[in-house]
């Protein structure tokens, strides 16, 4: 789950990590008023959207007057950045930048731990730095049983700074951000850039956080910040029914048991020249109600011209799956072509049960996919 910069900054503040004051605005007049309230010469107007690349898209602008602030706000509120329309902005005090740094905590698959990443170059695209000059990025895994005591925070801070006052400031930011990360079940907490001001203070000029969906049940404060897109609402509704669902652009609706097999099905549709309308993993069992729910979900997408059901009968036998499908489709009112591929335990019995019904039955994934692609043309 993603949150906005301003929401991340609120969390930072509550953990004592230094950020500049900001005002959240929904229209340009509010932005102009914010300029007055900040009572400073320079402000920054920043789009608040749940995606990266705001700067390149013109979503971040420096303003040095009330009018300029208002004008920038107007422009930015008219933008759409990577499909996200900008509906809110923040106006925040600009800082005198002496130098910029990058730091983040992120869950690392390889070390199976949280790692700290730091770089003496901040405010840049860190993935580009990682790709071109990986030696510039310092990575430190954190032992969950030990955490980030003073000596480690100091050790890591000395990597970026020499002056002990900056080291102590940095160590404190590291410890607070790590605590925030752990307390809130984050999957990413990033400061880019972390700015050393002309006045000698460290301050988080941007703030990015994402959270572990699996832990939201125990993170009520985080969950309250959730602003789902239309797609995410559909995906969340599907999840409530026990499905994993992702909407795509094509014409072949897929219904598969298992995430890996569902991905492989999409891949094969592409391989055979078709285009999948979705990813849908209906999970372990194939009871009739689940099939009804899944078909209802697929048929909402009017682009869907054909449905491909790919089931591996493992623990659930193929004959049980077949009878479940028959029961389900008795209640469904649709004449869309449905290709069924059934493999696994008792596959022959299962396929026989589907012969002569509305289903087109295939033996292999290849055959089923070919049939589905043909029907979608």
């Amino acid at each position, binding site marked *: 789950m993603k949150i906005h910069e301003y929401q991340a900054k609120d969390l930072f503040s509550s953990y004592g990590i230094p950020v500049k004051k900001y005002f959240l605005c929904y229209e340009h007049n509010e932005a102009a008023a914010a300029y007055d309230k900040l009572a400073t010469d320079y402000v920054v107007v920043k789009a608040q959207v749940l995606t990266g690349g705001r700067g390149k898209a013109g979503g971040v602008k420096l303003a040095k007057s009330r009018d300029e602030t208002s004008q920038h706000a107007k422009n930015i509120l008219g933008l759409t950045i990577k499909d996200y329309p900008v509906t809110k902005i923040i106006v925040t005090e600009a800082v005198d930048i002496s130098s910029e740094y990058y730091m983040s905590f992120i*869950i690392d*698959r*390889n070390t*199976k*731990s*949280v790692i700290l990443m730091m770089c003496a170059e901040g405010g840049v695209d860190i*993935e580009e730095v990682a790709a071109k000059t990986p030696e510039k990025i310092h990575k430190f895994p954190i*032992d*969950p*049983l030990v955490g980030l005591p003073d000596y480690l925070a100091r050790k890591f801070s000395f990597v970026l700074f020499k002056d002990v006052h900056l080291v102590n400031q940095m160590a404190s930011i590291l410890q607070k951000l790590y605590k925030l990360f*752990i307390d809130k*079940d984050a*999957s990413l907490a990033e400061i880019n850039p972390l700015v050393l001001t002309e006045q000698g203070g460290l301050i988080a000029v941007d703030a990015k956080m994402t959270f*572990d*969906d*699996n*832990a939201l*049940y*125990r993170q009520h404060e985080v969950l309250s910040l959730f602003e789902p897109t239309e797609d995410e609402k559909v995906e969340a509704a599907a999840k409530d029914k026990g499905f*994993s669902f*992702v909407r*795509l652009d094509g014409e072949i609706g897929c219904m*598969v*048991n*298992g*995430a*890996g*097999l*569902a*991905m*492989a099905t*999409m*891949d*094969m*549709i*592409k*391989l055979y020249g078709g285009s*999948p309308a979705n*990813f849908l*993993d209906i999970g372990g069992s194939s009871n009739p109600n689940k099939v009804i729910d899944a078909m209802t979900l697929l048929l909402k997408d009017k682009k869907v011209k054909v449905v491909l059901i790919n089931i*591996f*009968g*493992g*623990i659930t036998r193929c004959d049980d799956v077949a009878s479940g499908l028959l029961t389900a489709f008795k209640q469904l009112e649709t004449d869309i072509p449905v290709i069924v591929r059934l*493999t*696994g*335990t008792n596959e022959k019995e299962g396929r026989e049960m589907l012969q002569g019904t509305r289903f087109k039955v295939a033996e*292999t*994934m*290849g055959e089923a996919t070919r049939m589905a692609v043909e029907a979608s043309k």
Partner: protein
Amino acid sequence: MSILINESTRLIVQGITGRDGSFHTKKMLEYGTKVVGGTTPGKGGTEMLGVPVFNTVYEAVENTQANTSIIFVPARFAADAIMEAADAGIKLIVCISEGVPTLDVVEAYRFADMKGAMLIGPNCPGLMSPGKSLVGILPGQIFKKGNIGVISRSGTLTYEVVYHLTANGMGQSSAVGMGGDPVVGLYFRELLEMLQNDPDTDAIVMIGEIGGNAEEQAAEYIKKYVTKPVVGFIAGQSAPPGKQMGHAGAIISSGSGTAAEKIEALEAAGVNVAKEPSEIPEMLKAKLGK
């Protein structure tokens, strides 16, 4: 031989009296797995399917000399179950539970490692050494004893591959479903090492998917250390970036973790990568020179 589990595997089921726990205990017993005990706090002293139930893993281990455990408890209790098993002296812990918070896994994995225990999962189908032991929810009847090692990030896709292998007369030494989450226990590198060292494994199938760079790391390992033939498959070639494909671990982030990168790395390491699962048996036969 086989890896991780065999005839001397003595299994306890954590959460044995739950719906999933009891269902799969029955399946595992039917397959011939030595299920020697189970745990459910408060149900100690009772029996389930003829298997004694204990209040704690400590008691279970003490009374049954179990060396392996499988976990079917709800996600929010899974990390605690892993740590209890590790603390009680279990050496191989298989966590089936789905939806476990990642930081819970990070902590439980570290703790298990400190106690000298191996973890498989969470969010995995478990593992199977055909004819010897089933510790998981894999459908026993599709497997056949043989000399192909199968390691995979996915469940049903593993079954699909195993099904084709068995249908082509190619049995399996061991099959391990490692789990679909970003952080799980044993992974490609460790399992490749075990299969390379297993005298009863002649060839290896590794089934990867988008997200992370474990396949790339596996490719490096294969290039250096694996002399047995390896055939690969990568799911998610058509997946769009930034979208999670079912598995929490299957997500292409910032242009890395794509199927194309993984396939390239594997092929550079001499691994044949199949375009569809049904090709795998033929590719293996070609590599094995049959």
